[in-house]
């Protein structure tokens, strides 16, 4: 694994604004994101020789178009040798990056375009979205019959995490505030209105102790990135963003079968990723941490070792993760503010990490950012992925 360090790089990213866009066809989000990524890389579109369309969940008919190379034809890509879907829910950003790195390292592909779009904001009703996700990745035999769904999953994890660490409701709510501070500076984010701990805690309870404002909001969106080998990347672009470290664990399918729902696999994943990169948490300039609900952002940060267990709440509350803070965390606003576009929530964090490293993050730019960590997870938090990206190979 460790010989992958610095061998591939992301050379371009693209993203359309996230939100409710009933008149924007889902495929348009994919095509515009892909065009942006190709433009950002500044390469001829026909150099792309492998396309990875991430799964879309709002429509199986649309998804089958993706599987059958619709994006290749719509973009008029002439040099594509393979089109293969990679899909592991919210972790698809990481698993597609791993797949692209493998294809490139093995000589099967040279330039891989990964593209995602979904239409969960307007392609389905609010209740349809809830019902869709009540079945997506939740055991139809052992959990669905008991009314398990994503709010109750987040509720179960938050309850146990608060019980074991003594974290307070205010500290959990502070994650929403922190992410919103960043979203205020992100023109592509869905929700940019400032908020407070009091406002979050006065929103209605979905599933204890989770409040409505602590839940992601389903949205329409699209994003894309392009990966190639380090040599080509240096030749083609000014600032390649290298994959320096990669680690992951798949820990369960049913939440009830996860051995520790207050930790998941982030510790092992981080040990692998940081070990491969030869870096420590103190080298990281910006942390793009998967946040579909506050508790998952807290757990991932602590398990990666950015602070002691149970201490992240104070960091979020005291502003140490906010713009201008010592550890900028989830700087696009995350799914709690940018919006949740299915697998796109993780994709958006990858795109944001690359923008930060390339100095393209506008008002929320973390000055001089060289190294970023990205986490992602899919389904009922079945896996934990940690990637380290950087503009130099240490």
């Amino acid at each position, binding site marked *: 694994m460790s010989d992958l360090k610095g061998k591939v790089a992301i050379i371009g990213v693209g993203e359309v604004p996230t939100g409710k866009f009933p008149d924007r066809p889902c495929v348009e989000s994919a095509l515009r994101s892909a065009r942006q990524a190709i433009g950002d890389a500044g390469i001829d579109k026909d150099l792309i020789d492998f396309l990875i369309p991430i799964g879309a969940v709002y429509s199986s008919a649309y998804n089958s178009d993706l599987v059958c190379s619709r994006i290749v034809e719509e973009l008029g890509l002439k040099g594509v040798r393979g089109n293969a879907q990679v899909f592991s829910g919210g972790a698809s950003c990481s698993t597609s990056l791993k797949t692209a790195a493998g294809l490139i390292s093995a000589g099967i592909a040279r330039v891989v375009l990964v593209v995602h779009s979904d239409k969960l904001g307007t392609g389905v009703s609010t209740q349809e979205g809830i019902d869709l996700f009540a079945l997506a990745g939740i*055991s139809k035999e052992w959990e669905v*019959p008991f009314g398990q769904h994503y709010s109750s999953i987040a*509720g179960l994890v938050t309850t146990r995490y608060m019980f074991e660490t003594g974290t307070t409701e205010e500290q959990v709510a502070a994650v929403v505030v922190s992410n919103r501070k960043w979203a205020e500076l992100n023109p592509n984010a869905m929700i940019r209105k400032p908020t407070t701990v009091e406002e979050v805690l006065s929103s209605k309870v*979905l599933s*204890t102790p989770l409040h*409505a404002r602590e839940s992601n909001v389903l949205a329409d969106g699209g994003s894309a990135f392009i990966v190639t080998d380090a040599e080509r990347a240096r030749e083609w672009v000014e600032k390649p963003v290298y994959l320096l470290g990669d680690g992951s664990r798949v820990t369960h399918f049913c939440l*009830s079968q996860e051995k520790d729902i207050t930790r998941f696999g982030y510790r092992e994943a981080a040990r692998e990723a940081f070990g491969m990169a030869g870096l420590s948490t103190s080298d990281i300039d910006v942390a793009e941490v998967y946040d579909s609900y506050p508790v998952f952002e807290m757990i991932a940060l602590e398990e990666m070792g950015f602070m002691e267990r149970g201490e992240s709440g104070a960091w979020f509350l005291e502003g140490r993760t906010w713009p201008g803070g010592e550890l900028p965390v989830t700087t696009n606003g995350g799914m709690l503010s940018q919006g949740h576009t299915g697998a796109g929530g993780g994709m958006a964090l990858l795109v944001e990490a690359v923008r930060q490293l390339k100095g393209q993050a506008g008002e929320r730019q973390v000055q001089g950012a060289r190294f970023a960590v990205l986490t992602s997870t899919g389904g009922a938090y079945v896996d934990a992925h940690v990637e380290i990206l950087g503009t130099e190979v240490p």
Partner: protein
Amino acid sequence: METAKIPSKPLPQATPWSAPFWEAAKRGELKVQRCLDCGKPFFYPRIACPHCFSEDLEWVKLSGRGKIYSFSVVFNYAPSAFADDVPYVVAIVELEEGLRMLTNIVTDKPESLRCEMPVQVIFEPAGEDFVLPKFRPVDEA
């Protein structure tokens, strides 16, 4: 929330190898598989032992006693089929034998629930063909 017709509850999508679990539940018994090679019990039912991969398995009855590992009381935006049930309690119960399962806690006092609280299995019919193992706090039994 809309007042549309509430769809019927999703019933367990059982497998041939889980049938003995559901049959036992109908008789008011909580049963799991145990591996005859490595000796470990496991939940949920599998075609082979998830520890040593042996297919040599037996069914054993559990005590039905356990404690709450975690819980969440659902108040809003439940799945459609559960809209009439709110508030209801989703919980992960850790059984005496060390196994965990997702279930519901049946209680009149959801505000009194705590992690590590002792619970005892009860059985509730779901449709005509299934009985679901749920739990009740021991002090409410």
